C-alpha cells in the first residue's frame, strides 16, 4: 500500500477537526506554562493547509512544501515554525514523487525530527515535541502494514507524553518554570499526541 496526495488531504481534514476540538485545551495547556497560543497556532495552521488542499499538486514534495508554507504564513509561534521545518524536511525527501511507501514513514518522521532539532537547538530528552517525534519514528521503524503502523505511531506519541511527564521542561517558555513542570505534560507533546491520533485516524 502507498500514500498519495489524497491521503494527505484526508489527514488534513481530520487534523482540522481535531485541532478545532482541542482549541481551548491546547491554549490553556500552553497558558499555564507559556503564552496560551498553541491552540491558535494549530487551528490556524491546519485550516490554512485545508484551504490549500484542493489545489495541492500530485507531487508529494510540492504538496508538503505548500503545507509547510501554510504554517509559516499563519504563525510565527515556535510550534508553527517547527511544524513548517518538519514538513519542509519531508517535502525535500519526497520531491518529484506522487506516492510514498508505508515503510518510508519512519525515516520521514526521523528526518523531520532532525531538521527541527537543527532549527530549535533543543536536545532529545528535553521534554519537547522532538521526543514525541523520536518515539514515533522508532515505533514506525520496520512497519509496512497500515493498521499496525497507524496504531504504533499514535500510541508512541501518547506514551512519550506520559514518559516525559515527570521530567522538568528544558526549552522554550516552559523552561523557566523548571521543577514546577515536573508532572505536567509538555504542551507541544500533548499537541503531537492529538496530531498523531488525528492523522492516523485514531483521534
Amino acid at each position: 500500500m502507498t500514500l498519495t496526495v489524497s491521503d494527505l488531504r484526508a489527514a488534513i481534514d481530520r487534523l482540522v477537526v481535531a485541532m478545532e476540538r482541542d482549541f481551548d485545551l491546547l491554549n490553556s495547556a500552553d497558558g499555564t506554562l507559556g503564552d496560551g497560543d498553541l491552540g491558535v497556532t494549530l487551528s490556524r495552521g491546519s485550516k490554512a493547509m485545508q484551504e490549500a488542499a484542493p489545489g495541492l499538486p500530485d507531487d508529494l514534495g510540492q504538496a508538503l512544501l505548500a503545507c509547510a508554507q501554510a504554517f509559516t504564513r499563519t504563525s510565527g509561534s515556535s510550534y508553527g515554525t517547527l511544524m513548517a521545518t518538519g514538513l519542509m524536511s519531508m517535502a525535500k525527501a519526497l520531491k518529484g514523487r506522487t506516492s510514498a511507501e508505508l515503510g518510508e514513514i519512519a525515516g520521514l518522521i526521523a528526518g523531520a525530527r532532525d531538521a527541527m532539532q537543527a532549527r530549535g537547538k533543543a536536545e532529545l530528552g528535553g521534554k519537547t515535541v522532538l521526543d514525541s517525534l523520536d518515539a514515533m519514528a522508532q515505533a514506525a521503524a520496520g512497519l509496512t502494514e497500515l493498521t499496525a503502523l497507524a496504531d504504533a505511531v499514535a500510541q508512541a506519541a501518547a506514551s512519550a507524553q506520559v514518559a516525559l511527564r515527570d521530567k522538568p521542561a528544558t526549552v522554550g517558555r516552559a523552561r523557566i518554570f523548571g521543577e514546577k513542570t515536573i508532572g505536567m505534560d509538555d504542551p507541544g507533546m500533548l499537541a503531537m499526541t492529538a496530531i498523531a491520533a488525528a492523522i492516523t485516524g485514531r483521534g
Partner: protein
Amino acid sequence: MKKILNNPADYVDEMLEGLCAAHPEFYRLVGETKRAVARATPGPKGKVGIVSGGGSGHLPVFTGYVGPGLLDACAIGDVFASPSAEQMADAIRVADQGAGVLRLYGNYGGDIMNFDMAGDLVDFDDIRCTTVVLADDVASAPPTEAAKRRGVAGMVYAFKIAGAAAEAGHDLDTVTRVAQKAADACRSVGAALSSCTVPQAGKPTFHIAEDEMEMGMGIHGEPGVWRDKLKTADEIAEEMMDRLLADMPLAAGDRASIMVNSLGATPPEELYILYRVVKRRLEAAGVTIVMPLVGRYATSMEMAGVSFTLCKLDAELEGFLKAPCDCAFWSVK
C-alpha cells in the same frame, strides 16, 4: 478586561493599518503580507540598517520604535507570536542600505528560529546580517544562566543606543558592538498585577486573585519568582531595586538610566509614586541618574503591572542615549 476589536483574527492587520494611517510621517507598511513596517523616509544609502521584530501587543515595542535614530524596519507577528521568517526577511530587505543589517530583538525561541531562517533567506540577496539578542529579565534565570533570560523592556535602550550609533554613520560591526554593549548593560524586572487577553484566545491568559501580585512575571504571563499578597508601592519598588542592584551592582560615581515602565493598564500616577523610591535608592548608592524614562515604553496591552529597567552607562552609551530620535511614541531632542 474588555477589548475593543472586530474579528480577533484581524486585530493585528487593522492595528497596523490604523498606525500607518495615523502617522504616515513615520511609518510605512511593506511586504507581501503587510507585516513589516519601515520608516516613511528610509535612512540614507550606506547607513547600517537595524531591524527588530516580535509579537504584537507590546506597543510602542516593537513597531512603534521605527523612526530616525531608532529602528529602520520591524516585522510584526500576531499577538505574542513571532512574525514569520518571510516577514522578517521583508523587514531586513527594506532596511538594508547596502551596509548590512543588525537584527536586534528579544530572547524568545520562536523569534530566534524565525530570524535565523530569515537570515538564510536574505543570504540570497547578499545582505550581511548580525544579531544581538536582548536577555535582560533578571527574574527569568540566575546570573549563571544569563543567556537564557527573556528579553523585555531593555530592548528600548538597545534600540535607542544602537539606532543612534547607526545614525552617526558607524559600520555594521561597530553598531553591533555598541548594541551588544547596551544589551549587556541592561537589567530588568517586572511585577504583574493582572492579565491581559490575547484577542484570538478571547479570555485572560492567566489569573491573579484580586489581592495578589506576581514578582518577576514575564510580559506574556510567564511565571516569576513569587506570587503573594499585593504589597505597597514602596515595598514593590524597594524589592525590584534590590533585585536589579544585586544583579548589576553599581558604585558611587556610576551613571545609569532607569526606566519605570507600565505594562499597560497601570497609570502614570502610580509610576510616579514608584519613581520616588527608585530615585532615592540610586541616589543613596551615589549613582547619577541620566534621562529617567517613566511611562509606557514596553507593554502587554491592558496588563496591569510595572517593570524597572536599569541601564548602566559609559560615555559612549550615554552619548548615544542622549542623541536625537523621533517616532510616534518617543522623541529625544
